[in-house]
C-alpha cells in the first residue's frame, strides 16, 4: 500500500480521503468527523491500537507531522487499524448503514459469483469480530452464502473492519432491500441426461425447502420466493431449472 506522505505538497489532502482512495479500500465508507471525535464511540480501542492518540490525530487530520520516519510509519499503520475498528462500529449506526446501503446499491462490493444469482450485489462481512483473524468475505443476500473476494487486494483486508453482524443488521433495518430468493437450480448433465446422484440430492433439498415454506406459511410469514406470488395465482409450474 502507498504510504500516506505527510510531508509532500499534497499535504492538504485529508488522511481519510487518502485512505478511502487507496487501492483495495473500495469497501470502506467515510466515517463522519463527529463520530470519530466523540470519544464514547471509541471506547475500548486504546488498548487495541499502538500510538492510539497519534493515530487518532492522524485520522482526524490534527497530527503534528514533526516526528521520526519510523514513528510516522507506525502511526500511519495504527491509524489504518484504528479507522478499520471504528468502521466496524460506524457501519451499524443509522448514518453508516445508509452510506453502506448506497454502496451496496451501486455494486461497490461486487456481484455474486454464483451464476444463478444473476449478478446480485454483495455486502462485506467478517467471519469474526476479533481483528487479525480472518480477511473480509462477501455476503450474497440472494443465496445467503459467503464468498471470497475476487481480487487479492480485497481479500487482504481484515474482516473485523466490517464485522459479523453488519449485513444482517442492514437487512433487518431495510427489509425491503432483501432481494427475491431464487429457486433456480443447476442441473448437472451428462450427454443430455441428468446426473443421477446430483438429481437425487436436488430432490432431497427441494423437500427441505418445501418443509421450510410450509413452516413459514403456517406462521403467515412471507417466504420471499417468487412462487409465493405464483402460488396465489394458482400456477404450479414455477420450478425453473437449467
Amino acid at each position, binding site marked *: 500500500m502507498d504510504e500516506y506522505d505527510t510531508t509532500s505538497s499534497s499535504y492538504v489532502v485529508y488522511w481519510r480521503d487518502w485512505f478511502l482512495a487507496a487501492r483495495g479500500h473500495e469497501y470502506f465508507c467515510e466515517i463522519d468527523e463527529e463520530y470519530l471525535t466523540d470519544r464514547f464511540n471509541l471506547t475500548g480501542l486504546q488498548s487495541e491500537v499502538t500510538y492510539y492518540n497519534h493515530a487518532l490525530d492522524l485520522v482526524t487530520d490534527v497530527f503534528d507531522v514533526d516526528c521520526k520516519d519510523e514513528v510516522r510509519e507506525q502511526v500511519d499503520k495504527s491509524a489504518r487499524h484504528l479507522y478499520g475498528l471504528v468502521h466496524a462500529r460506524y457501519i451499524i449506526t443509522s448514518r453508516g448503514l445508509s452510506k453502506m446501503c448506497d454502496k451496496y446499491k451501486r455494486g461497490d462490493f461486487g456481484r455474486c459469483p454464483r451464476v444463478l444469482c444473476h449478478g446480485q450485489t454483495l455486502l462485506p462481512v467478517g467471519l469474526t469480530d476479533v481483528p487479525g483473524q480472518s480477511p473480509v468475505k462477501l455476503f450474497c443476500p440472494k443465496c445467503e452464502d*459467503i464468498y*471470497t473476494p475476487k481480487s487479492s487486494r480485497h481479500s487482504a483486508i481484515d474482516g473485523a473492519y466490517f464485522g459479523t453482524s453488519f449485513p444482517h443488521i442492514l437487512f433487518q433495518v431495510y427489509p425491503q432491500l432483501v432481494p427475491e430468493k431464487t429457486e433456480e437450480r443447476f442441473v448437472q448433465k451428462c450427454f443430455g441426461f441428468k446426473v443421477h*446422484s446430483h438429481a*437425487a*440430492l436436488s430432490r432431497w433439498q427441494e423437500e427441505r425447502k418445501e418443509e421450510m415454506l410450509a413452516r413459514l406459511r403456517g406462521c403467515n410469514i412471507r417466504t420471499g420466493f417468487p412462487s409465493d406470488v405464483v402460488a396465489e395465482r394458482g400456477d404450479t409450474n414455477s420450478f425453473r431449472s437449467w
Partner: protein
Amino acid sequence: MEEQDSWIAHFCAMPGHEYFCEVSDDFIEDDFNLTGLNQMVPNYKQALEMILDVEASSDEEDDPEDDEYDSRQYYSGRRYRNRANVNIEAIHANAQLLYGLIHQRFITSRNGIQVMYYKYAHNHFGHCPRVNCGFARTIPCGFSDVPGVDTVKLFCPSCLDIYVPPNNRFLRIDGAFFGSTFPSLFLMSYPELDVSGPHPGATGTKGVQKKVKEKTEGSSRVINGVVEANFAPGLGKGNIYDMKIYGFKVSEKAKSGPRMKWLRDRPEDMKELDEVENFSNQDSRYVVDVSNNAREENSDVTMQDDEIAGR
C-alpha cells in the same frame, strides 16, 4: 522458415484461453471425430488447415519470392499468405470456432479427460469462490453444447453449483467449447478424486492422489454411483452459513431471516438419498398407473392432459 509454435499452442496461450487444453493432432486428423462440424463452421477446410498448420493447399502458382503477406498478422511471428478472395481474419475466426467445437469433443474422450485432469490438478481452472468449499478446485463447463448461447462457467464438485469465472477475460469464452457434459464425465472418470478443499501446497497430481488415498480409506461407500466421501463434501452440516447478529442466529421467522439453507444442505447419512430415490421411483410408477387407468376410463381427461402437455 524458422521453427514456430503450432497454431494450437498459440491459441491455448492466448489470454482468456487458460482453460483450453491442446487437442492432439491424432484426434483432429481422425475424420470420425469431426463428424458434422463441416456444417457448423464456415470455410471449414481452410479453418482446419489453419489449425493443423498445413500449408494452404494452393492451386495457384507458387512463387515464394513474390508471395504477398498479409500485413494484419493475427499472431506475432506468424504469417499467412494473403490470397485473393480469402479473408484471413474471417478464416481465423472460423478456425477458433472449429477448434472450440473439436475441443468440446476431445475433452470428453479418454485422452482429453486425462489432459484435462493434469490441468485440474495444476489449478488451471481455479477454485470455488464459496468460503465453505475451502478452495475446492472447479471444472470448466458450458450450459449449452451449441456455440453462441452462453460463456464458460465453472462447476464446483464440492457444492454442485456453478460460478462465473473470476476474471473478465473469461467472459468472452464460449461455454460450448467445454460443453455441458464435461464436468460429470470428468468426475465419473475419477471417482476416487477428492473434490474437497483445501489443498494447501498440493499443486500437482501427486498431492491430489495422496490426499485421495488417505481420505477414501474407510469411507469408500458408493452412493448413487459416487464414492460417498467425494460427493458434495462442501455441503451439509457445518458448511452452511449462519446469519448472525451479535452472535445470535437470525430467526427464520424474521422478514430478513434465512430462506436458502436447503440450497447448501445434504443429508448427514447419504444413504438417505438412496431412499429418496426409491421412494420417488415408486411415486412415478404410481403416477403412471393412475394415468393409464384414466386413459382407459375417461378419454376426455387424457385429451385434456395431452393438450396441457403440448402447450
